[in-house]
């Protein structure tokens, strides 16, 4: 890989991890609040309230870290898969510049307590216009990097007619497409509704239309977080455990399944919303459940690849082979633990999407409990595990400490079991999310919340320790000495059947893109027409913090 591209990827990953480091710092504050330890008064004037802290935690971790890391990682996987330099490099660098500019604008308003609206920023809570403009610029910048990545793929496909796109590049490019399609909702929300309203060009806004456009983007966003982990689990992890990918065809089918079923599903986040016709809530429920199929296929293919590799290493027994996997490799251990916890994240997701069950858990702590298994484990722990080889590859410096890297992933795993377990449990007992329970007026009415709250707090502190271990490894590696004899191999898995045997329709990009667009039009077209024809901008809103 060209030095130029390596450096570009390194900068993207580096800034992403810097955002994560601040986001993680704020995590234990929320967790300790559950144990009635309110540290926020000590943080004034730096952080004004619990709500400012949660906003920073959510925006920096779930929006900034993920987006920056994923654009960087996909730049890497697309270039590595195709063995090409990045095309339209200037455009990508300009896009990255915009992302950073957007980050600085929004970041300023967040720290200045001008945008304590949480990472869902539901209008008519009204943040500083700079917050919305910054986030919009960040997304447009990410599109530009995406165009550059897709142009690289386009050129490669022209030069290699009839050849199957290498899997890691294919899965990554699908995710880039997913992002471009999904963010249309939030772009429309920002440009047509939120920014004019926050700039006082219009006096009020339509809350339901805002929420609908937000969730058009909001759910595919979670697949956008997840698919880079899938790229690694399908395309890299089999190699890291000394095996091969079990099925190239099903891996591809699963990526396309995520693209097709990613977007027309947002109403399952609005089951409790008034004003959304029931028909569309159930149509989206049906489409949401379709994602179960590629998810279960992934579970099968990835576990089959792992099992074959483990049996080749002498593994025996129905489950006994698991211990023959290379657990001493922190990158492998991290991904295995992430995948294991993701199983529970997936089951929880099915519960959330089950319309009637959703009434029990909507907006309780169950929900953050759930997405800490998905984005904060399946994605984040996998991303951490990836950096254990990616940072040495990009910098030419060996990993600072394999042992501490192993401690990182196990600590994260144990912390998450407590934290997420506590949050799920607490949610089932009816505790609301996004509330500082230490100061809430009704906490004393619920003595049964005590035990799960302690679980959550203990888990949060353990997670924080895991985060500290992680950043010691990252910074230690980064500041370490270059060793030219250390040649880090990028793990790219082969498949048991050569990709050439994979049918051509699984590499027919037009087919799948058209199919995705058609489903989005079916799933959102009529209801958006209805909401827009009922357009009633009557919520003035304001700053309530």
């Amino acid at each position: 890989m060209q030095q130029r591209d390596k450096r570009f990827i390194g900068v993207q990953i580096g800034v992403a991890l810097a955002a994560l480091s601040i986001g993680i710092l704020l995590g234990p504050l929320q967790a300790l609040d559950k144990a009635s330890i309110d540290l926020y008064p000590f943080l004034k004037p730096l952080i004004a309230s619990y709500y400012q802290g949660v906003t920073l935690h959510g925006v920096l971790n779930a929006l900034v870290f993920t987006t920056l890391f994923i654009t960087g990682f996909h730049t890497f996987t697309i270039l590595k898969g195709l063995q090409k330099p990045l095309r339209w490099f200037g455009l990508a660098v300009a896009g990255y510049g915009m992302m950073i500019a957007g980050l600085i604008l929004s970041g300023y308003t967040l720290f200045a307590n001008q945008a304590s609206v949480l990472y869902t920023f539901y209008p008519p809570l009204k943040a500083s216009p700079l917050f919305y403009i910054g986030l919009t610029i960040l997304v447009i910048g990410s599109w530009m990097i995406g165009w550059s990545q897709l142009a690289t793929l386009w050129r490669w496909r022209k030069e290699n007619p009839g050849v199957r796109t290498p899997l890691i590049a294919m899965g990554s490019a699908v995710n880039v497409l997913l992002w471009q399609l999904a963010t249309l909702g939030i772009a429309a929300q920002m440009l047509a509704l939120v920014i004019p309203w926050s700039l006082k060009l219009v006096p009020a806004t339509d809350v339901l239309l805002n929420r609908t456009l937000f969730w058009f983007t909001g759910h595919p966003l979670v697949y956008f977080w997840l698919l880079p982990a899938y790229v690694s689990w399908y395309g890299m992890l089999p190699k890291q455990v000394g095996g091969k990918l079990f099925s190239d065809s099903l891996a591809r089918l699963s990526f396309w399944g995520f693209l097709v079923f990613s977007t027309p599903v947002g109403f399952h986040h609005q089951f409790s919303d008034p004003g959304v016709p029931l028909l569309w809530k159930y149509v989206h429920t049906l489409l949401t459940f379709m994602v179960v199929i590629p998810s279960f296929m992934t579970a099968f293919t990835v576990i089959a690849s792992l099992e074959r590799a483990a049996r080749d290493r002498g593994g025996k027994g129905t489950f006994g082979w698991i211990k023959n996997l290379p657990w001493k490799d922190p990158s492998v251990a991290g991904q295995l633990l992430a995948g294991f916890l993701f199983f529970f994240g997936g089951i929880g997701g099915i519960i959330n999407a089950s319309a009637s069950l959703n009434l029990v858990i909507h907006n309780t702590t169950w929900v953050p409990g759930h997405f800490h298994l998905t984005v904060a484990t399946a994605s984040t722990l996998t991303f951490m595990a990836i950096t254990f080889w990616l940072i040495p590859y990009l910098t030419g410096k060996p990993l600072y400490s394999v042992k501490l890297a192993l401690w990182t992933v196990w600590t994260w795993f144990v912390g998450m079991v407590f934290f997420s377990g506590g949050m799920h449990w607490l949610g089932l007992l009816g505790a609301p999310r996004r509330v500082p329970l230490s100061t809430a007026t009704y906490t004393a009415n619920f003595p049964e919340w005590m035990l799960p709250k302690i679980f959550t707090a203990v888990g949060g502190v353990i997670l924080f320790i895991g985060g500290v271990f992680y950043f010691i490894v990252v910074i230690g590696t980064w500041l370490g000495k270059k060793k030219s004899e250390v040649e880090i191999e990028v793990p790219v898995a082969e498949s048991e059947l050569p990709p050439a045997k994979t049918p051509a329709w699984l590499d027919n990009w037009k087919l799948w893109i058209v199919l995705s667009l058609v489903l989005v039009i079916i799933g959102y077209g009529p209801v958006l027409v209805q909401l827009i024809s009922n357009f009633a901008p009557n919520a003035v809103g304001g700053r309530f913090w």
Partner: protein
Amino acid sequence: MEIHRYEKIWIAITISAVILMLAAISLASFGLGLQLPGVAGSVDPAKLAQTPPFDKPGVYQITEGKYQVVMVAFAWGYNPNEVRVPAGSRVTFKITSRDITHGIFIEKTNINLMILPGQISEASVTFKDPGEYLFLCHEYCGVGHQAMAGKIIVEPKP
């Protein structure tokens, strides 16, 4: 396309599971009546004081054992924030917001609603057992969010 036999079996299991789960949801939603809130009308949040029924929030008896609660949510409270009904009552809530987005979750029930300015949220529940049922706001609505709550007092049948 070559698909391993085990994979075919697995995909068949997956598809059957999806069908089964969707059947269960349909049964719960349409058979057992665990229905989601739908469209219950819209209202201008600036004109609530002139718009029935929100001009007079309160508890109204419709017929024997049937009540309607007309409620307005605001930062940071509910009007009314205390509701009294006899045990065994079927209570329909009609709620909207005067300012920003709120929510309501009534403990020990399936009432879990978003409350949006401009929209009317509606849901019904039967309170079988006497006692106090706390309700609280579950959508972030600013610095007083953690103090936004109220209660339903279900009185024993006379």
